[in-house]
């Protein structure tokens, strides 16, 4: 480490990048494993261990590192170490906040948001390439779930049709294997993609600080530490997010889980193949929703989904706000080592507070599969309270309820029509009567 400028700042940035990597693994476990956990194809602990190992393998598997973060989204010239630090901090905070609320949201969008915010604070609006931000981040966030819902729906529908008269226990037994296979693929792809983002950030920081030469490849210790940080995060398991994805959106069975995960894996890999990268989180969520739409007799909790979509829309602005705030604090202290220490300290304090907050209603591998508590979700789920104990009854009731409502509406319409006709008739009758009266009086 000869000629390293600002070695402490560099160390703080590297530590923060690893922390982001950790939250990334932790936040995105659900994308791959939520369905397997919900359908009990794998025990919760076994699922996160599998996912963590595959993330780790994925991180080593391919080393074509994403050269820069936020290429084409922010002006590369204004990205300095303090900007990267503030951006990472913004991404971490947003990841933790969404985790607290159990909302799956894209980790890479959080990171991009954080960096955009820090750049805005550092260089003003010229530093951000708005067209790039719109076409590479904001629009794909809207497109990804639509594509995934379509693919997931078609896949689930076909599977459900083909296997409708196969006994349920054989279905479960066989589809579980398919589910584990496809979920593993999603984990692997995630490890490769996302661990490399952190590696890229650390490499950039090392180059910027002069610790490694400009054309250096990723040092081995960076690969190992990134892979470990992500695997550790995945193993810790973002149970809150897993719960929302696995139990909150759709009540899943193995067939749906298999179709959803295959759809996720296919869309994620194909989208990066065609150079139109879609967020893993958005795709996975869309696929799970699709598996609810495509399955006869399955219901989707759209209010939960709506809350998630809302979170996706505000991910970039919120992370940007936090990133900008961190950058501003850093600079107003005077930047440099002290500033970076303050930012790091604040980050630790905030994370700890969020952790404490989460302990008030902890979710762990023990209760991740409990029935979705309707009370969490306002009056919309009062009707579903029945389903908590008897899903079978609920399904029938819901359908009946819908039919009954339709019948009632039809009756009402008919009634109104009849009344309208009657009213018309009476009016005509009266008119005729009054004419008669008129003529008789004459």
């Amino acid at each position, binding site marked *: 480490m000869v000629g390293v400028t600002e070695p402490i700042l560099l160390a703080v940035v590297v530590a923060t990048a690893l922390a982001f990597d950790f939250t990334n693994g932790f936040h995105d476990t659900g994308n791959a494993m939520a369905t397997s956990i919900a359908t009990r194809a794998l025990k919760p602990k076994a699922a996160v261990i599998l996912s963590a190992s595959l993330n780790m393998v*994925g991180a080593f598997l391919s*080393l074509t590192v994403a050269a820069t973060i936020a290429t084409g989204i922010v002006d590369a010239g204004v990205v300095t170490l303090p900007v990267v630090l503030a951006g990472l901090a913004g991404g971490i905070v947003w990841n933790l906040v969404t985790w607290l609320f159990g909302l799956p949201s894209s980790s890479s969008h959080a990171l991009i948001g954080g960096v955009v915010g820090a750049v805005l604070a550092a260089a003003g609006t010229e530093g951000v390439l708005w*067209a790039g931000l719109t076409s590479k981040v904001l629009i794909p966030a809207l497109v990804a779930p639509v594509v995934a819902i379509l693919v997931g729906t*078609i896949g689930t529908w076909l599977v459900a049709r083909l296997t409708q008269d196969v006994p349920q226990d054989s279905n479960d037994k066989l589809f579980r294997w*398919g589910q584990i296979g496809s979920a593993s693929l999603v984990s692997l792809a995630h490890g490769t993609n996302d661990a490399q983002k952190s590696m890229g950030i650390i490499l950039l920081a090392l180059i910027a600080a002069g610790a490694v030469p400009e054309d250096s490849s990723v040092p081995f210790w960076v690969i190992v530490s990134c892979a470990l940080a992500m695997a550790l995060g995945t193993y810790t398991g973002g149970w809150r997010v897993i719960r929302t994805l696995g139990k909150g959106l759709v009540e899943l069975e193995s067939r749906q889980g298999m179709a959803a995960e295959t759809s996720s894996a296919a869309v994620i890999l194909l989208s990066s193949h065609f*150079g139109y990268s879609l967020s893993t989180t958005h795709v996975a969520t869309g696929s799970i929703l699709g598996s609810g739409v495509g399955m006869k007799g399955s219901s989707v909790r759209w209010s939960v989904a709506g809350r998630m979509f809302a979170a996706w829309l505000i991910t970039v602005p919120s992370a940007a706000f936090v990133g900008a705030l961190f950058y501003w604090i850093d600079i107003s202290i005077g930047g440099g080592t002290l500033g970076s220490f303050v930012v790091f300290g604040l980050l630790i304090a905030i994370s700890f507070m969020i952790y404490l907050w989460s302990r008030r209603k902890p979710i762990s591998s023990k209760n991740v599969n409990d029935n979705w508590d309707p009370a969490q979700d306002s009056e919309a789920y009062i009707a579903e309270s029945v389903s908590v104990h008897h899903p079978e009854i609920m399904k029938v009731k819901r359908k009946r309820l819908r039919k009954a409502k339709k019948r009632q509406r039809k009756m009402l319409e008919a009634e109104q029509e009849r009344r309208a006709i009657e009213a018309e008739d009476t009016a005509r009758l009266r008119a005729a009567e009054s004419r008669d009266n008129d003529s008789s009086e004459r």
Partner: protein
Amino acid sequence: MSDYIEWSALGQVLLYGILVGAGLPTIFAIGVRLLAGPGAVGADGTVSRGRVIGAWACFAVVVLAILGAVAYIAAGGH
């Protein structure tokens, strides 16, 4: 809007996504149906050889697809 959405890439993702993402589960489902569907288990309580071979052929396609995807990831094609 066309500046902001890469329609051709999106169309390809959608098309191949449906082919692969919905096709593979369908093939798997055909395998399950062959192995455990109605009429699969004969009078003697076993599944006929043709059905077993067909089912495993279906599963093999899915396994190959997964292995292919792993190779694709490893080759850095993403």
